[in-house]
């Protein structure tokens, strides 16, 4: 399970709009799938979550499974695996003064249940430590 949070300037409505409505701007350029660095990334209330290149080609990135503005968004997420083995992303938006804490929880779904099994529980924080510890153990 991956947990990340970030503190955004502005209220929850603005944070929700940035996350869902401006994904084209925050989605990492290195993670575009259509070979167009200026493709759009769209997260829609109706359920689609996809990338669209300037020439009109499209690629599904996942599916919106819960759309509860401005508090909560849930998505099936295909990048990293594929549509047959989606992972699950939950995003929550919590007001904190005049800022908003956005928390992302990213874990396996039923079809990707084994994704985190290999991780040793003692090393939740440091994946590299797990890798080298397990490698050493295997080579002993």
């Amino acid at each position: 399970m991956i947990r990340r949070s970030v503190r955004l300037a502005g209220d929850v409505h603005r944070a929700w709009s940035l996350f869902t409505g401006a994904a084209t701007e925050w989605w990492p350029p290195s993670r575009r799938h259509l070979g167009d660095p200026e493709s759009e990334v769209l997260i829609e209330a109706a359920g689609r979550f996809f990338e669209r290149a300037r020439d009109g080609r499209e690629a599904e990135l996942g599916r919106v499974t819960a759309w509860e503005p401005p508090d909560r968004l849930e998505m099936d997420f295909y990048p990293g695996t594929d549509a047959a083995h989606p992972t699950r992303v939950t995003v929550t938006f919590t007001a904190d003064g005049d800022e908003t804490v956005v928390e992302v929880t990213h874990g396996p779904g039923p079809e990707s249940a084994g994704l985190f099994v290999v991780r040793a529980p003692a090393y939740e924080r440091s994946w590299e430590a797990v890798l080298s510890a397990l490698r050493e153990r295997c080579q002993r």
Partner: protein
Amino acid sequence: MKDAAHALDALGNPVRREILRSLRDAPLSVGEIAERFPVSRPAVSRHLRVLEGAGLVESRAEGARNVYCVRVQGFAAVREYLDEFWDVALARLERLSRR
């Protein structure tokens, strides 16, 4: 990521997930694994073959016996991809909110 799909298919089976959980603590032989699960030795061997084919475990000789251990590279690439994705994405989102 075809390898990830292959590995995830292999782990669609709960017995194989439990075998992998045992192996992450220590390398084990087929006999030792069979003692821990209500599954026959040939069945354990079959599960291990599937896990090995998916790149999730590897076997090696340890004296006279053969032990299996976790091959962490099986999923490392996918998880690094997902971990790093949110680090980059949320940093960009944060900058966007300050504009």
